[in-house]
Structures are given as C-alpha cells and as structure tokens.
C-alpha cells in the first residue's frame, strides 16, 4: 500500500494513497460536514458543505472530490469556509419547505411531543403514547382533564375544520393505562446518593420529585396536608379530577421511590435550616399559591363569608359547610368558577358570580365559564362589592351591597379600567359569600427561622426565583410553580418544576444543565395567515369527536366526573385526524443539524413558504415529500439496485432543481435504504409516524430473524416500542443492505395476536392458565407417557428461528429429561 502524509488542522496524518481528503479526514475521525456524501459513490454536483482550504491553492476545494496528496496542508474550518457553508445552507433552506416540529408541540408550554403521542394513539400504542407524555409531564391524568389546551389553539387542522382534541387523547391514554393496570416501567438512573427535599406535594412538587427521582436522587416530599395533591386535590374537586384517578396518578409517581412526609408544616415542623442540617443537598419550594387575596370591604368578617381556597379545601376534605340557598361568588378567575360549580353541587339553589367587568374580560377560561353557566351559575357583571351586612330580610342571611361599574377611559397602556358609576348601588340578598380575588404564595413573609425570614418576596407576594436557574436568594434553595408565578395552569407548574429539576440536578451533581432542543425550526407558516391553504389539498372535512359528557342538569347534582372520556374507537378516530405537521425525520435531518451547528438564521435568510409538490404516497412503504428535498442525491446513489431516479426539468440560477422528480423504478424491492440515507425528511417510512425529538432512543444491535443471510440490524427502541429498524453500513455481512422484510417486517413483534398467557385444553377448549399449572401438567403428562410407552414415544420439533442456546437446550431436554433422540427441526422444510 502506498501512503501519503498530509496535515489536516495541524495534525500530521498518514493515509492510503488515492483517497479523497474527506475519506482521509473521516478515517482520522476529523469531522467535515457534508449533505451529499455516499461512500464510494461521489456526487456529480457536490453540496459543497465539505469545502476545505488547501495551503497554496486559491479558493475552496470540495474535500469529497480533492484527493489527499503528499505534503498537503488542509484546514477544515476557517471564517471563509464557515461563510461558504452558511451560504450553501441558506440557499438550500430558501426552498426547503415543511415543519420541523408541529405547531402543537411548539405551543405546548410543556414542549410535549404532541404529534408523537397522537401517532402512537393512531397505531393503538396507548402505553407508549403515555410514556411519551410522561417524558415531560408526569401528571397526564390531571392535565388531561384540566389543561387550558394551548396546543389546540394552534392546531393546523383549524384551517380545515376543527382542531384535533389533543387533550382528550392525553386523558384517554392515561385512563386506558390505568384501566389496564399498565406499569410503564419508567427507567431510573443509578442512585446518586444525593438527598433532595421538596416542600409541597402539589403539581409542582410532584413533578420535581418525579424527574429528580428518575435522575437517581433520593427525594422526600414534605406536605403540610394529610394528603398529597395540593391544588389538584384542593383546587379542583372530584367532578373535575376524581379522587381515585388523582390517587392513582400520585401513586405512579411515588412508586418510582419517592419518600413522603405528610402533615409537616414548614416553619413549624421543620425549617430550611433543619433540612440543610439533615443533609439535603438541595431544597425545592413548591408551596403553590394557596393564600387568598383578602376581600377588603366592611362586614367581610362573618361566619358566612369564605375565601375561595378555604372554602374549596373544606369541601375537598369532606366537610359540608352550610352555604344556605343563595350564594355569591366574588371574582372572575378560574378558581371562582370552581367555587361556583361546587356551590351548585352543594345544593345551593342560586349561585351568582359577581365581576366588575364584562364576561369576555373575565380571567377564567371561557370554556370554564360556559360550563359553569350550563350548570346554572348566574353572572352579575359590571358590578363590584361594597359592603356586607346582616340581612334584614326573611330567609336570607346576608345583604351584599354592590356598585355598578362602567369602563373608564383607556389608560396609558390602552386598557379601560372599570370605574364605579356614582350612586348606582344595588343589593343582593344571599346566605353566603365566597371571594376569589386571586391567590398569592405568601400573605406577608415566610416564618420559621432566619433563612425563612430572608426569603426575597416579589411584589406579587410570590417567591422570587431566577428564571434561568430556578434558584431563590438562598444558595441551594430552588422554587417553581404557582409559588413563583402565582396561579397558573397545571401544565405551567409542571414545566417550571421540570426545569427546576434539571437545575437542581445540575447543581447537586456539579454539572452543566442539558441544553434543550434548539429553537431552530422550519415552519410552513408561523401564524394561520401565513400558511398556504394548498397544504390541505385533498384533506376531507372530518369533525372532531365529541367528548361524552353527563347532562349539566344531572351532573350538577353530584360530585361525579362530568366528562366521561373517549372510548377507544373515538380516540383512534380522533388521532387519525392529526395532519402530522411535524417532520418524522426530525432526529436524522442533516440539513437541520448543520443549520443549527452553523447558526443559520432562516427567519432572516428565508425558507420555503409554499408547497410546490404534492406528497406522494404511491410507494407501498415510502412517502415522498419533494418539498423537503435538497437534491443531495443520496437516495439515488445509495440505492444498491439502481431502482430510484432523481432529476429535475431545469435548475434555477442558484443551482436548485425546478420541476423535481423522484421516481421508484419497477425494479425497486422496497428495501428502504434510500430513506435511511435521505439527508432531510423528503423520504419517509410510511409506518414511522413518530417524530423523535430529544427523548432517549435506544439502539439495539441484533440479527435479522428472517432468512439465513444473517443481516445485522439495528432496532431503534423508544420506551417499550420498536420505532424502526435500520442497518450499519460498516458491518458484515450485509454492510447496511437489508430487504423489505429486514427493514419493515417487524410489526409482528408487538402485534395484538401475540400469545401472552399459557393455554391449557379443558373440556375440549384452550383456556388461559398459569405457568405453574401449565408446566406441572405438562411435566406430569410427559412423565406418564414415558412411564407407559417409553421415552421414544415422545418426539420434539426444535425451531430453526430460535437461538442457538434454545436449540441446544431443546435437544438437551429431549435427550436428558425425556431420554430420546427423537429431536429434529425444520432444516429440511
């Protein structure tokens, strides 16, 4: 072998002669980016990403073309090279059209892989759908019931008919797994030996405990109430989140191995200092926002006037405060709606919500307002309480004095604040009043010790935690959820807690926090107005499934759940409505990865805005989206059968194809290698509908179970599901080649027809039985046959599809336990 010696990035490299600079660099593990390279099959028009500088030569050289020569001095990174690569990327990006991530995914505060779990539901993989949700949200039962559904507001299906009922699907998979007693077997990292205290067992505390436990930490939750749940238990009553569901949800978190100390009041039973003294490496404050903002009007102190959280808590604890026949709720937030609906359920005949502005300005979610109204809640708008007096009228306990309001002139921000209309008093005769004017984390200051006293409090009476680090003004003490933000949705508390858990993990381990997914994103249009309606050509109107709901007149009579949940059929149907906006090649897209690496700002340089080509799903196993094609040609050149034709009618001034065509020839064997080689999401496997984001994917190397060629395969596994099968181009004996069976034919593994229990014949029927009974019975029968007719009365057929070890054991079993050579297999069949 003749060799050449050259220098790449200052390192001297001896290489086989005749190789390209790119090949030499790769063998020396020097990474040169490329979008078009297929080893041994050079591109006619290279993508130019692999340009390098060679000393003494002018301009840049494509390293996939230039041969490595003796004495060459090569640089693979320089300002000039980077500029060229950026320019090349921006040219390709200008016409690349599609969504990296779906809008639902981007809109979800939890950044949940929404499209992914919907796709799992569509495939009937409910367990995996839930596992995917749980990657980012450990409270799918609650969130699936009470989420404001930010995602659904951005669902592109709105441009066709109605958004996908995403949240109902989340609830469906959670409930399905509960009903089927599925243990998700969520993996935990090895123990770190670090102890972490979580103060507060509501959504934020439970979430932090979940993620910190998964990271291998030893977590203890300190909860002041006798039961966990916080706002989930005391803010939402049973008709929203049934207690058995909530308890199940909390237990799934505790089962991971979380310690809990109940009825432990911070400042009384323990302090920050005492926790530090006990060796907790970090403390997470998740105390929520459970302190009601007081109603400050004369007469408020009386036995029939409550604040919202106090009232809800009493009901949640099973107490039945006497609210009389008529009640007023002061305030228009979400908690006020819960209070009103709870009052109705307590048998209060007239419930009136009083709010100083109009209905559309109420901070409660419109959906919640509508539901309260359906159940009989009345609204007295543009009115404000002035005074509470004892009632003088027969049959009512309190008199609530009100003043009518009007909207004033716009203030500096253009907001019209309500102003009282002078002299416009109004009275309301009621038996009880509940005020819900908002909640804070703390009434004034925390107490308990010096550390508590030093906690910085924001003007909103919440904890002041750093947005990036989640840390408060005390070293090693973190906070998140409503305690920091004030009352927000559950999913927002989950997000804050997850971020805090990442920060706490980094803090106690002395590491740097993992960077999340980049915000880089190709989009088919940020707002609805930006989306070309051509995107939806050929999509038929198919309205969303309606959530089965108990009639308001009935459900307002009790505390049973109002919404009954989707049936399996409805869920599948609804999931099939998903337009699958996000790219299923997200995890393997080289264009995206290089754009991120080189910091390409496509919002400035531009991206495709309109679908030029229709999607082509005529191939039995592959979907082609030419809008994403960057004409790298890897599909055509990687095809071992010469069965794919890529071309264009002409090219534009920047060398990009116009009138692009990508055709499978008649000799295509559907081996799918082109898909695995595609540099973007232009080629996709039909069945691979799950976009993989930053969730962990396990790659398991194995041997194909079909013919005797022994092809080496890679099973890509997420959770408990095989997502796809690929092959390593470097590995014998198949060197990346697979047939259609090897790459696609693995659905049988997780098919519903698999045998899951031993069967035994009883009264002529095969019925399920236990392993013990099946094995005992079999052993006895074999024993009897042997005793009666001799060992040669028994024969065994071994299995040419099973492993060596198992074939070895089968013949050993027949020869030892039975005592016969009547053992054979289908080698000859």
């Amino acid at each position, binding site marked *: 072998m003749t060799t050449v010696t050259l220098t790449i990035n200052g390192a001297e490299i001896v290489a086989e002669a005749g190789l390209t600079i790119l090949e030499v660099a790769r063998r020396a593990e020097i990474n040169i980016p490329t979008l078009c390279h297929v080893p041994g099959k050079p591109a006619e028009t290279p993508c130019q990403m692999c340009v390098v500088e060679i000393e003494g030569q002018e301009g840049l050289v494509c390293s996939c073309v230039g041969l490595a020569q003796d004495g060459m001095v090569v640089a693979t990174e320089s300002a000039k090279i980077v500029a060229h690569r950026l320019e090349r990327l921006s040219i390709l990006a200008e016409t690349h059209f599609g969504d990296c991530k779906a809008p639902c995914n981007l809109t979800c505060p939890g950044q949940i892989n929404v499209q992914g779990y919907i796709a799992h539901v569509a495939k009937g993989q409910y367990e995996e759908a839930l596992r995917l949700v749980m990657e980012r949200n450990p409270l799918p039962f609650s969130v699936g019931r009470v989420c404001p559904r930010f995602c659904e507001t951005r669902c592109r299906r709105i441009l066709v008919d109605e958004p996908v009922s995403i949240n109902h699907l989340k609830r469906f998979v959670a409930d399905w797994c509960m009903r089927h007693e599925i243990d998700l077997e969520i993996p935990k990292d090895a123990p770190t030996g670090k102890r972490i205290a979580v103060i507060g067992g509501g959504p934020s505390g439970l979430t932090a405990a979940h993620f910190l436990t998964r990271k291998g930490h030893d977590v203890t939750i300190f909860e002041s109430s006798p039961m966990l749940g916080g706002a989930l238990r005391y803010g939402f009553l049973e008709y929203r989140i049934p207690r058995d569901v909530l308890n199940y949800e909390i237990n799934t978190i505790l089962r991971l191995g979380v310690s809990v100390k109940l009825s432990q009041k911070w400042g009384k039973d323990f302090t920050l200092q005492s926790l530090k003294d006990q060796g907790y490496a970090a403390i997470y404050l998740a105390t929520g926002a459970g302190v009601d903002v007081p109603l400050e009007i004369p007469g408020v102190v009386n036995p029939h006037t409550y604040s919202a959280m106090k009232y809800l808590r009493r009901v949640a604890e099973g107490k039945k405060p006497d609210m009389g026949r008529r009640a007023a709720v002061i305030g228009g937030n979400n908690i006020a709606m819960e209070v009103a609906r709870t009052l109705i359920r307590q048998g209060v005949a007239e419930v009136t919500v009083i709010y100083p502005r109009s209905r559309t300005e109420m901070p409660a979610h419109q959906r919640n307002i509508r539901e309260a109204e359906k159940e009989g809640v009345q609204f007295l708008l543009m009115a404000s309480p002035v005074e509470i007096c004892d009632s003088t009228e027969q049959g009512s306990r309190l008199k609530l004095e009100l003043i009518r309001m009007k909207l004033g002139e716009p203030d500096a921000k253009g907001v019209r604040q309500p102003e009282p209309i002078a002299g416009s008093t109004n009275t309301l005769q009621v038996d009880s009043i509940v005020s819900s004017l908002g909640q804070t984390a703390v009434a004034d200051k925390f107490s308990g010790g010096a550390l508590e006293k030093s906690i910085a409090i924001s003007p909103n009476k919440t904890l002041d935690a750093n947005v990036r680090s989640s840390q408060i003004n005390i070293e090693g003490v973190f906070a998140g959820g409503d305690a920091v933000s004030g009352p927000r949705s559950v999913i927002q508390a989950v997000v804050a807690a997850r971020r805090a858990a990442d920060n706490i993990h980094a803090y106690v381990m002395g590491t740097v926090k993992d960077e999340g997914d980049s915000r880089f994103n190709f989009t088919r249009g940020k707002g609805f107005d930006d989306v070309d309606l051509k995107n939806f050509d050929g999509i038929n109107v198919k309205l969303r499934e309606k959530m089965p709901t108990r009639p308001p007149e009935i459900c307002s009579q009790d505390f049973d759940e109002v919404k009954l949940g989707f049936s399996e059929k409805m869920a599948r149907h609804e999931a099939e409505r998903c337009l699958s906006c996000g790219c299923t090649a997200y995890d393997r897209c080289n264009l995206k990865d290089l754009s991120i690496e080189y910091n390409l700002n496509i919002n400035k340089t531009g991206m495709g805005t309109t679908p030029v080509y229709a999607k082509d799903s005529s191939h039995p*196993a592959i979907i082609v989206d030419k809008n994403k094609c960057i004409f790298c040609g890897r599909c055509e050149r990687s095809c*071992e059968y010469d069965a794919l034709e890529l071309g264009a009618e002409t090219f534009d001034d920047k060398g990009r194809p116009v009138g692009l065509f990508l055709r499978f020839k008649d000799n295509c064997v*559907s081996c799918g290698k082109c898909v695995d080689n595609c540099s973007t999401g232009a080629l996709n496997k039909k*069945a691979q509908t799950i976009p993989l984001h930053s969730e962990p994917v396990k790659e398991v190397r*194995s*041997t194909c179970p*079909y*013919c*005797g*060629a*022994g092809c*080496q395969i890679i099973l890509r596994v997420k959770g408990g*599901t095989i997502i796809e099968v690929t092959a390593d181009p470097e*590995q*014998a*004996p198949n060197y990346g080649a697979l047939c259609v*069976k090897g790459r*696609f034919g693995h659905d*049988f*593994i997780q*098919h519903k*027809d698999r*045998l*899951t*229990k*031993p*069967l*035994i014949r009883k009264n002529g029927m*095969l019925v399920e039985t236990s392993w013990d009974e099946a094995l005992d019975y*079999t052993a006895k029968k*074999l024993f009897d*046959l042997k005793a*009666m007719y001799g060992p*040669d*009365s*028994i*024969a065994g*057929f*071994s299995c*040419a599809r*099973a*492993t*060596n*070890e*198992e*074939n*070895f*054991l*089968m013949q*050993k079993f027949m020869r030892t336990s039975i*005592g*016969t*050579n*009547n*053992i*054979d297999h*289908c*080698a*000859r*069949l």
Partner: protein
Amino acid sequence: MTNSIADIKESDVIMVIGSNADTSHPTIGLRIHQAKKNGSKLLVIDPRRTGFADEADLWLRPNPGSDVALLNGMVHVILEEGIWDKKFVEERTENFEELEIVTAKYTPAYVEQITGIAEEQLRAAARLYASPGKKCAIFYGMGLAHHATGTDNVKSIANLAMLCGKLGVAGGGVNPLRGQNNVQGACDMGALFNTLPGYTGLDNNDAFDRYEKMWEVKLPRRKGKAATEVWDAILEGDIKGIYVFGEDPVLADPNAHHAVAALEKLDFLIVQDIFLTDTAKMADIVFPAACYAEKDGTFTCTERRVQRVRKAVEPPGEAKADWEIFCELSHRMGYDMPYSNPEEIFNEVTQLMPQYAGITYERIEKVGLQWPVPSQDHPGTPVLHIGKFTQGKGLFIPEDYTPPTEMPDADYPLILTTIRETPQYNFGSMTRKTPEIEALCPEAFAEINPADAVRLGIADLDTVEISSRRGTVQLRARITDRSQLGTIAIPYHFAEVPVNNLTLNSLDRLSRSPQYKICAIKVSKIEA
C-alpha cells in the same frame, strides 16, 4: 456455506443452481447481481426463469428433478475434455475412479434425454464452471434440496466442485443458502435425530461419554426419528406425545392432511410459539414464547457466522424466553438445567463443540465469528477447506440419477413447484402482520406458463382450482413464462392457499427432506 458472502465479489464465475436468492436471500442475491455487473460470469441452472436467469451469461432450464443427471453430465464433459483440476484431485480427494465409472454413461445425449438440455449448452456450462485457474462459486438453495434426491443433488454438487478444485479458495466454494435465520445454528446445536451437537454422530461413543459426564445423565444412543417421519410413527401408534417448538407442521409439512390426521391421533401435544398457529390450535398445552427481539442469544447464519441477538423490548404479557421455559420444564421433570442467562448456555456449548470452542459473547460483541473457531485466539474461518479438508481427503460420492417420485401422468398432467416471494416469509405468521408487506404481496398466484395457459383456456387473474392426489386449493392465476412449460409455481406463504395440502410427503432417503419442488397436479378454471 464453505465460503463467505463477502467472497461473492471475488468470484470469476458464479453458478446458481436451484436458488432464487432474490426472493429467499435478498441481500445475498443483491451481491450476486452486483458481482455480475462488475464482470463475474453468471451461470444459472433453474427450471424457473428467475431474475438471475434473466441476467445470466448462460442459463440452463432443465426438467424439474433432473439435477443429478445434469451435474453428472457436466462432470462427464469436464472429464472428457480434460479440464478438471488434476492436482487438486490427486492431492486432496479420493474415490475419483468411482466418479469416472458412475458418470461414464452420462453422455451429453443421455443427459439431454433426461434434462432436456442440449449438448451444446451442457458443454458450455461445464466449461464455464471448470474454467481452469478461475475462482468459481456454486450457490444452491432449496430448489436443489427439496427433492426426494436432495442429498444426491448436493453430493453431485460437491463432486463437481472437488473435481474442478474450486474449494478452499476465496471466491469459490460450495455455498448452500440456508432458508431460515438459524437453521445453521439449529443443526450445529444438534437439534437433529442423528447427531449430537457439533455433528457428532450417534455412533461416537467418546462423544457420548463426554456429554454424559458433563450432563451427569445417561443418554440414549439409539437412533431417533426425523420430523418428517414422526407422522407415520404417530399413525402407527409408536409416538404418543409431541413437543412442537416454534413450528407449524399443519401448514409447513408436505401432504399437510397427513400431519393433521397424525396430530389428531396424538395423546399429548405441546406447542411453544409466539402466535396461536394452526398447530397450536390443536395443542393440549400452549406455552407463550418471547420472540427474537425480546431475548438474548445467538444465531448462526448461512456463512457459519455466529452473531448476537439482543433483547430490545419486553415480551408481551407473561410470555417467556424459550430457554427459560425449557429450564422450568426440565426442573419439573426432575433434571435441573439451572442456567440464569443465555450466555451461560452458550459457554456450555463452547465447551462441548470444538467448532464453537473459541467463541465468547465478548468476542462477538461487535462482529460475529465464522466457525470453526477452535480457540480463543483463532480469528474464525471465512473460507473452509483451505489446503486441507476438515475430514482429511475429499471423498467423491457419485450417485445415479433417480427420477422424482411422482411425475405427471394422464390424470395429473402438470408439475407443482412451491416458491417464495421476496416480501413474505415462510407461512406469513411474521411478515403478514406488516401492512407495507401485505401491500406489496397480498395474495398467492398460481404462475402458469403462457403456452399452458392457452392450452388450458386460463387467462391472467382467472381463479383456478389446483388438485393433487392429496388435496385441492383455489387461487388466481398469473400467466408468466417464469414458470416452465408444464410447471405451475405457487408461493407457500399464504394460509388461505395451503399449498402443502397438495405436496407429496416423499422423503429423501438420508436427510428425510420432502420433495416440495415436484408433485403431479391438475388444474381447472373456476367459472366466476
């Protein structure tokens, strides 16, 4: 395979006989096509016009079941023309005289009578394969083995390769393409009625002594029954119980009605499988098993490469890995097999089998090794028989041509041959659960030669009824000259077309392989 898949690119001449690797071993078929494209000569012997036949430099289309005559004819020509490898024959083989004697009568004229191959073609094929000094590989598949004379066919192949000195060299060799992922391993492991693991015959008392010492048990030394012989033994009352591990004889066995009748007569049937197969439906006990992706272990592929299988996901429900089931059952039978993982079993295998002696899980962590691997520092054996045969000298075992068991006659005038389609596998229990594969290959067609179709009045896509003396199936016809005149080919993947209701349980006298590739049938069109 004596050689490796990677060798294919080294071959000057590739002879493919009785194999349509494009459908049965697609990634190997691919390498053969690529070698051809890169200049290797391709010699194809097949009654069926396969994709290889289309590309071949020379394609012989003999009558079905006439392979021994054809191969003997090639030997005859090579001897007559003096183009054999004299040095190889002299130094490395024995019984050459017998070969000369037996093949003497296989003159081109005599061979043409049997095979339908003209002298000119026969000579061309013989010369192409013999090509002195060139590397010539033979690939064969079930088209050669699934005959009542399957072992005769294989011996004739070996005779030809030894005569021309094509063994022990990269790019040469005799390369059977094993049908199933681990059929090689199942044989290696001694899941056979006539040998202990590692091909130690039942007459090898030393081996038995060794096994008995290791396993601390007395082993039976009398011969067992082959799977294909079991059915008669049941019907005769000799066999009362069967343990079927991962097979579906109701669909797979030739003359399947015969197997069903036998299963019905059994006292006790155990089936261990991943699906409730037709055989499992008849069982007294069904054990739910883990599939390949749910357990650890090794497979040995057709090039003798021992490769890892790794657990990727959990088995469904209470299904268990097969090895665990054996251990538990054996324990209950009073013989302990206390393994805690497949690696422990493998380590026992390597202690007992010299071919596997040097293999450990650690060594095959990244890349598999090709046996024999006699010691831990041995790199494996990509090419067998370099310089010396494993068993000393290569023995010529010439055989005479015997006609197939059931040839067409007035009542059943056509031949049925069973084939595979690329997307499907075996009886479809695995492949037919993937929608993309079903889309590619949703049904079985009876492939009928255009001339036969005209004669029989059958048009493309007509529904036809095909009957043999044993059974009947109905399916649609596809008119194609891939089928030889007088032969109808049907894939066997489809349970709704149980083609083994037609096939013949005529067995090879040594291997006991059935003659799937030939039985006499008649065909009639079903009017819509």
